[in-house]
């Protein structure tokens, strides 16, 4: 039992260590270092020995000394004998090992004898592994997008693995892709169009949605349940089904290639979500306030503007942010309705740019950064509002 548990513990922690070091090696490779192999066998032996040694030594040496010894041994073996690499790489390895020894220091021989100890260890390490794995998998494309926009076409072709940015160069050279897309590809105009469309959608949607949501939340009328269920059903409805009829109707009405056309479609598609989210919030406002207002002979307009709106600013702002994000990110309708470069939105412009095979990829990535940054900024800054709203209404996607 004891031997079995010890072996399992060592194996799990070793795999975790291999994973950590591999990610570090990948990142180092992408800084232009020539690392051609992970040396998994050596990592495995070292990791296994360290885990065993940790259990063997126990508390006889202070944690900090123990970690430093382990880390130094590992760095010495891996970094110095196997690969001659710059000092910053070895410092990274040292820190990883220090982190690793700190993590495994929580376990001792006594813990291993407890019931389900291997499962507990597996769960702990899986969580750690998951955190690192998902951070890496999610952030890596974003990192690549950002870095590529600062490189040049030649550098990218010569060594696609060299992601290092030379910060020593002139600001103008560093941000060259951005200057180019704004100057020769008119990205300033596209940003303006996208902003007008998104902000316009937010305003119109709120104008329509607040009264409707108030009616659904508070008033009794024939067809109310029908209305609130159909909101949900319409929300589920596929946009691709609307494309062809809307295209034909908009062509005949001359609404294609116009901001008005986009505004109408975006408002109609975001209204159901907005009404659904708002009415949920309006229902939570105490009714007594309105009853007092009705006694004061306030009209519905007065009730909405003087009571409901001031009380539901958080909900309204989260709906506004959502609608903004949906309109900003929207691609399908802008692809269908816009074919004149003068009326492009940002997403459509980037897609148009990529249609030309000659467009250097760093311009494409610079455009992508430009379209992504505002959304991510809004999201991170207003995260608290947005996450609660996401689970309540959920953005369509």
């Amino acid at each position, binding site marked *: 039992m004891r031997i079995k548990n010890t072996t399992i513990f060592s194996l799990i922690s070793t795999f975790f260590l291999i994973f950590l070091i591999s990610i570090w090696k990948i990142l180092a490779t992408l800084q232009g270092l020539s690392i051609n192999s992970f040396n998994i066998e050596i990592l495995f032996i070292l990791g296994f020995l360290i885990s065993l040694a940790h259990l063997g030594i126990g508390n006889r040496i202070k944690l900090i000394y123990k970690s430093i010894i382990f880390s130094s041994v590992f760095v010495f073996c891996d970094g110095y004998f196997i690969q001659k690499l710059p000092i910053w790489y070895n410092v990274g390895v040292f820190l990883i090992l220090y982190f690793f020894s700190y993590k495994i220091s929580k376990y001792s021989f006594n813990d291993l004898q407890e019931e389900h100890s291997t499962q507990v260890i597996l769960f702990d390490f899986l969580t750690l592994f998951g955190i690192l794995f998902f951070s890496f998998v999610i952030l890596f494309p974003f990192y690549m997008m950002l870095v590529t926009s600062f490189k040049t076409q030649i550098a990218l072709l010569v060594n696609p693995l060299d992601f290092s940015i030379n910060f020593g160069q002139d600001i103008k050279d560093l941000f060259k892709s951005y200057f180019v897309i704004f100057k020769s590809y008119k990205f300033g105009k596209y940003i303006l169009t996208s902003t007008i469309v998104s902000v316009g959608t937010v305003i119109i949607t709120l104008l329509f949605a607040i009264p409707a949501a108030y009616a659904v939340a508070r008033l009794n*009328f024939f067809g109310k349940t029908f209305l609130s269920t159909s909101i949900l059903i319409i929300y589920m409805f596929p946009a691709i089904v609307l494309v062809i009829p809307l295209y034909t109707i908009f062509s005949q009405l001359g609404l294609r290639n116009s901001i008005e056309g986009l505004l109408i479609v975006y408002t109609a*598609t975001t209204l159901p979500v907005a009404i659904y989210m708002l009415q949920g919030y309006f229902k939570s406002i105490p009714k007594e306030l309105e009853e007092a207002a009705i006694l004061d002979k306030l009209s519905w307009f007065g009730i909405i503007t003087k009571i409901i709106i001031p009380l539901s600013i958080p909900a309204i702002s989260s709906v506004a942010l959502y609608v903004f994000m949906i309109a900003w990110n929207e691609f399908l309708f802008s692809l269908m309705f816009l074919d004149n470069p003068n009326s492009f939105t940002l997403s459509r412009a980037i897609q148009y740019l990529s249609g030309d095979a000659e467009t250097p990829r760093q311009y494409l990535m610079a455009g992508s950064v430009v379209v992504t940054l505002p959304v991510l900024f809004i999201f991170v800054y207003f995260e608290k509002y947005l996450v609660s709203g996401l689970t309540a209404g959920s953005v369509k996607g």
Partner: protein
Amino acid sequence: MNDTLANTEKKTAYILTLPAVLLVFAIILFPIFANVWISFKEVELKDIRIPEPRAKKIVKSISDEHSKIKILYKLRNSSLLQEIRDVSFKDNFPKNFEIENLDSRCEYKKSSLKCDFGNWPAKYKENFQVIFSTNDGSKIDKKSLKSIKPKLDGKSDNILLNTNFTLKNFKKVLFENEFVDLLLTTFYYTFFGTVGSIVFGILTAQMVNQKFYGRTFMRSVLLFPYVAPVVALAYTWELLLDPNSGTLNSLLLNYQIIETPINLLGQKYIEIGVFGFDFKLRLALTTVIMFEIWRYFPLAFLFILARLQAIPKELYEAADVDGASPFQKFFKITLPQITAVISILFMIRFIWNFNKFEDVFLLTGGASGTRTLPINVYQQGFAISDIGMGSAVSIVIVVLLLMFMFFYFRLLGKRVDEN
């Protein structure tokens, strides 16, 4: 008294909801009916322009005679396919103008020329000429003459409004064009994308439900793929997976894991040998599904996390007292608590993935075995420019979805009954 109050309440409610209802009706419900209508017609992209009678006005001065002028109208039917009936023409002139040659189809009254040109067949063209002179002999200003535009009017059939229906589109959709293959591709894409995103959602939610340093940061990072614009993400992935100088292939080559680059988005099949069995994996489709899972697991993560945080702690404490292992706790407590959320998520994601257009369109454009039904709507309607076919495909999508929802709810209803 009470009655009138209820009545005013009703009235107010209708006033408040009407704008939203009207807009949604016009842009969402009406097009759905329009779609059914169009799907039974033979319509092409070029047919949807309404035919118009057009006239180009050319003003020519006649040499030696300053008080006379020749005006040429180049008349034509803008449509190459449809005739225009009862074309009427009207143009205005200065008061001192007198007409010299009045066409039999026209009359000149109160300094305006009115004509009835009758029916114009498709591609119709005519040069129509009139000569005017001023009755007081004054000089003619050509510019001001040119600035007055003639008005033309005519009746034409809007091909969308006539009542010629055909089943041709549906026959074509269902019996030609590799419908089975399309359906299978769409099903693989939808099903594996849905299941994958839910599995990853469960894993990440379970992970973030633990306490660790940087947990809120982790929560927002996990949502990045879901909130970022699809265009940016798709092109970044394309760059990442590019066979020539993409990062992934370069890394794999660098570590000698592969010998030749793999075209993950451009290769339909890849041969894989497992335990001596060779089978073909649909490579591009798998890659597209991976992207889909990567982009949409955050939604599952959020829903499941919210549910996990609502599970009472006592359940786990009781399990601890009973000496349950972590796996037992997960399978016996956590999983039963989240099945309801998972079944809702499965439905939502299944429906949305079934209709997903942008992701596949941007990554592969539907090439190398990734043509799903929504991609087919676009290709039929806009690449081949057969609007009727595109509509028919989208009707098929709706019908399939309704069938799915019907069976899903029956299944759910049964399971609820059993419990």
